């Protein structure tokens, strides 16, 4: 899959962000070959993607580099929803719908990715870390021994996406009944409310103040 990072628009004068550039260089040096791809958006954020084997080691390394604040951990299913954006197709998944998986920043090879965010306390420097989840294994290592706060986030990701976390002390469901089948946040899990009754708000386009004559593009 072609990473989006190389296709993002290049501004006419590339803004520099020396702080984050130096920070990313420091992170990349410490992580070495663990990093598959990285991306820096000036004055915005940093992204790295690491290999699945080094997922926990990455957390440990980043913690020792000063990223001691745990932001969040979650997963993402890159499969385009077979039911379409509006989920209004009551007959089920459409055959001819485009099902090309298109990963976001720093690319990826698998349908599922786990991503997390760590922050350096007292600054705004944070880093988003992604990892591919192999479809055959459907599990990555748990971060809960490194960041205690990851415990609940991994439980949530486990029940919503069906991704296992090796070494997690207690992967019980947080929200759903124990005998619930399926993983609601997966894209191929239908939103039943939408199938029973189409969403009326999908056609609702609210007029904006001072923009009543033309459908102008943002300049």
């Amino acid at each position, binding site marked *: 899959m072609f990473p*989006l990072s190389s296709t*993002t628009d290049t501004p006419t004068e590339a803004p520099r962000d020396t702080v984050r550039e130096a920070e990313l260089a420091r992170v990349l040096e410490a992580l070495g070959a663990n990093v598959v791809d990285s991306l820096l958006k000036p*004055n*915005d*954020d940093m*992204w790295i993607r690491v290999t699945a084997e080094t997922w926990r080691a990455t957390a440990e390394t980043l913690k020792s580099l000063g990223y*001691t*604040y*745990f*932001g*969040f951990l*979650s997963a*993402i*299913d890159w499969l*385009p*929803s077979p039911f379409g*954006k*509006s*989920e209004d197709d009551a007959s089920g998944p459409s055959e001819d719908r485009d099902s090309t998986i*298109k990963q*976001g*920043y720093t690319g990826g090879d698998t349908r599922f990715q786990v*991503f997390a*965010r760590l922050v350096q*306390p*007292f*600054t*705004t420097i*944070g880093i*988003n870390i992604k990892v591919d989840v192999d479809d055959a294994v459907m599990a990555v290592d748990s971060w809960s021994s490194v*960041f*205690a*706060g990851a*415990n*609940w*986030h991994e439980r949530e990701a486990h029940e*919503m996406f069906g991704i296992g976390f090796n070494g997690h002390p207690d992967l019980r*469901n*947080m*929200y*759903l009944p124990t005998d619930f089948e399926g993983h*609601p*946040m997966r*894209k191929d899990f239908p*939103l039943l409310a*939408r199938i029973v009754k189409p969403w009326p*708000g999908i056609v*609702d*386009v*609210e*007029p*904006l*103040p*001072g*923009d009543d004559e033309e*459908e*102008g*593009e*943002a*300049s």
Partner: protein
Amino acid sequence: MTMLGDRQQLAYIAAQAADARVNVELETEGMTLNIGPQHPATHGTLRIIARLDGEQVVWAEPSAGYMHRGYEKLTEVRTFPQVTALVNRIDWLGSFANEVPFILAAEKLMGVEAPSRAQHIRTILFELSRIANVSLFLGDLGVQLGAITPVFFAFRDREYVLNLIEAATGGRFHPNFDRIGGLKDDLPAGFVEETRVVMKKLRTFCDQIEDLLFGNEIFQSRTRGIGVIPKDVALQYGLSGANLRASGVDWDLRRDQDIPMAWNKTEFKVITHPDGDSFARCWVRLQEVRESTKIVDQLLDTIPAGPVMAKVPKIIKVPEGEAWVSTENPLGEMGYYVVSQGDQGPFRVKIRSASFNNISIVPWLLKGVYVPDIITILASLYFILGDIDR
């Protein structure tokens, strides 16, 4: 003298042995105590299962999910402007504050920035939601400890703030006022003068609460030294907001983050407390309401002229990309990780709500505390159920 000393020592040993005998006789089996889901101390429907040894908790586990509404899934089938109506309901006491980080994330992806007047009014409404939210906490705190009066004061004075929010947005609890590129409307006539009066009232309210509660001996003895969270543990669990600052961490996203809001145009103190106990958390919140009223006062003086809406297309399509924006919400750091694939709606939204992280520390924190302290610790952590479950 030595004899007396020996006799004293013997008496002491005898007393110890007698105590031990009593303890053996009174040794109880472990007991499991269920609190909630319909308990007044849980602000909704949080259930806490605690295993007790006598009066002490040996193990506790909060069980959330009684109010899970699946907003992350729902955002995937809505358009970007429609999402604000959903995220309003996450922290329902400070609704406007929930909309702002999502809108900022969408604006970041689109490369749009709201006009400075809109940024200013956003910040005012944001702080008003904080005041409305936290003032209710301060009243509620009293109820948890058996003091009834503060909650009446809180409901009375919160009403003034809600009236302001209603005057500006049309909604008391769920404004749904923020738009990509600005705000739905300008402020109504007379808003500035009225807000100034209300801010004065709220400062009086803070004084009253401080007199009624924080100086109270019972309140102090039930909160001081109870539920202490050290700094490094707080960071590991991703605690945020007043819970983090009460552990001595001087970190406030309003001050430390450069986002298109008007906080950097004001002077305010970031309140911290070194103790990290229940008292510190409550005290920090009280002081933050005071600071918020001062922020609002400063912002009212400097509202710039101009439009409240940037030029955005009628049908909003957000370009491909990923963005993370978080703000210092009444409950702590609230952030949205928005993934767009160029459609009218988001592809994936990860909602990082403050209470989810704040409550995930509860199993660690409740270990070894006494049963009545569970209530004060939970109250001082201050969570909203909608903010845990989303």
